[in-house]
C-alpha cells in the first residue's frame, strides 16, 4: 500500500489530465449542445433535421468506437489528430448529443405565456431568447447537465486505451511497477469518486445561484419582485 502512496506524484499527474479532459470535453459539449439544441427548437424543418441527425448519430455511436475511428482510421485518409484532440473531440461530440436533447427539452418546457409576453412587449427574437427564455431554461438544464459532466468524467477513463496518461493509464503503470494490484485500483477508484463528488457539489452551487438569480427561492430577488408587484397592483 505504501508503494502506491509513494507514487502519488504520478497519480496527481493522471488526475490533472482527467480533470483537463473533463473541462475541455464539457466546454466542447456545452457549445455543441447549445447550438444543436437551439436548432432543435427552430421553426425551419431543415434546421430541426440538422438537430435530429446530429443527436441520433452521436448518441448512437459508442464513444470508444468514435475515438478509435478518429485515432486509427482517419489518419489513413490524411487527417491526423493528436491523442488529446481525438479524445476531447469524441467525448465532446458524444456528450454534446445528450446535452442537445436537454437544451431542446428545457427550452420547450418554458411556459408558452413567456413567449407570448415577450412578443407582446415587442422584444426582438434575439432579445426574447437571451433575456426571457434562456435564463429560465438554464435553471431546468443544470441538473441534467451535472449528470452529463459526471458521465463525461467517467467516460474519460477510456482515453487510457489510446495512450493518454490519465488516471487509469497511471494506474496500469503503477500496477506494473509495484505489483500492488489491489491498492492501485482502490486508490484510483477513490480518486475518481472524489472528483465526481466535487463536480456534483459545484453543480449544486450553480443550481442554487441560478435559482437565486431567477428569484425561485426566498431571497432578495423574490422580495423585490413582490415589492414591485405590490406597487404596480396598488
Amino acid at each position, binding site marked *: 500500500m505504501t508503494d502506491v502512496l509513494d507514487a502519488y506524484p504520478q497519480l496527481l499527474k493522471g488526475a490533472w489530465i482527467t480533470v483537463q479532459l473533463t473541462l475541455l470535453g464539457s466546454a466542447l459539449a456545452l457549445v455543441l449542445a447549445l447550438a444543436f439544441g437551439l436548432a432543435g427548437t427552430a421553426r425551419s424543418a431543415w434546421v430541426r433535421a440538422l438537430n435530429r441527425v446530429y443527436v441520433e*448519430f452521436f448518441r*448512437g*455511436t459508442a464513444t*470508444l468506437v468514435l475515438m478509435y475511428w478518429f485515432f486509427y482510421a482517419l489518419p489513413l485518409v490524411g487527417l491526423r489528430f493528436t491523442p488529446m484532440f481525438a479524445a476531447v473531440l469524441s467525448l465532446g461530440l458524444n456528450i454534446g448529443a445528450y446535452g442537445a436533447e436537454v437544451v431542446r427539452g428545457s427550452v420547450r418546457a418554458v411556459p408558452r405565456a413567456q413567449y407570448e409576453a415577450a412578443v407582446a412587449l415587442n422584444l426582438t427574437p434575439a432579445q426574447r431568447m437571451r433575456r426571457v427564455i434562456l435564463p429560465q431554461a438554464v435553471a431546468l438544464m443544470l441538473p441534467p447537465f451535472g449528470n452529463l459532466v459526471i458521465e463525461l468524467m467517467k467516460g474519460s477513463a477510456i482515453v487510457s486505451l489510446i495512450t493518454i496518461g490519465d488516471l*487509469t493509464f497511471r494506474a496500469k503503470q503503477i500496477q506494473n511497477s509495484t505489483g500492488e494490484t489491489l491498492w492501485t*485500483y482502490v486508490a484510483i*477508484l477513490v480518486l475518481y469518486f472524489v472528483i465526481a463528488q466535487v463536480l456534483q457539489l459545484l453543480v449544486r452551487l450553480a443550481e442554487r445561484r441560478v435559482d437565486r438569480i431567477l428569484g425561485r427561492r426566498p431571497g432578495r430577488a423574490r422580495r423585490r419582485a413582490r415589492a414591485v408587484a405590490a406597487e404596480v397592483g396598488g
Partner: protein
Amino acid sequence: MDWDWTYTGDILPDLLDGLRLTVTATVLGYLIAVVLGLVWTLLRRTPSRVVNGAVRWITEFIRSTPLLVQLFFIYYVLPTWGITLGALTAGIIGLGLHYSTYTAEVYRGGIADVPRGQWEAAVALNLPRPRVWFDVILPQAVRRVLPTLGNYLIAMFKDSPLLLAINVTELLAAAYKAGSHSLRFLEPITLVGVLFVLVSVVSSILVRLLETRTHATD
C-alpha cells in the same frame, strides 16, 4: 486511401464473430443489471438504517466511478483473492454491476410513482409483505419504467466495447485485430461505427414504440 470493398467483405465474418460476443455480453450483463438493480432498491427500503446507508454509498460509489476501472478491478484484483474469472465473465459481471446502480434508480422512481392508495389497499386487505411487493407494487412500477429500462439496454450495448481492454474479442477488438493484420483501419472501424449506429437507432425506435404503448395502457 480509398475504400476497398473486397477487403471489407473479407473481414466481415470476423466482425460478425465479434458482434456475437458483444451481444452475449450485453444481454447477460443486462440480466444481472435488471435483477441486481431491484435487489439494491428493495434493500434501500429495509427499516435497518445501517443496511440502507451502506447500500446508498455502495451504489453511489459504483455509479460515480468509471466502468473501465471497475472492469480492471474485477479482472486483475479478484484473482489475487483466489477468484479467477475468464475475461468474458469478468466483463459481463462488470457491465451488470455498473448498470445495476442505474436500474436501481429507475426502479426507485417507478415505485415512488405508484399511487399511495395502492399501498393502503394492500394494507387494508391484510396482504402479506411479499405479496404486496410482487403482486401489487412491482407489476405497476415496472410497467411504468419499461422504456427507461430499455434505454439502459442501449446504453450498455454502447459501453460493451470497453471489454476489449480486458482482452474480450468483441466487435471493436475484432475490428482492431483485423486492421492490425493488414494495417488498414479505415474499413473495419468505420464498419463497427455503422453497425453501432444502426443497432442503436433501430433499438431506440423500438423503445419509443414501447413508450407510446405504455402511455396508451395507462
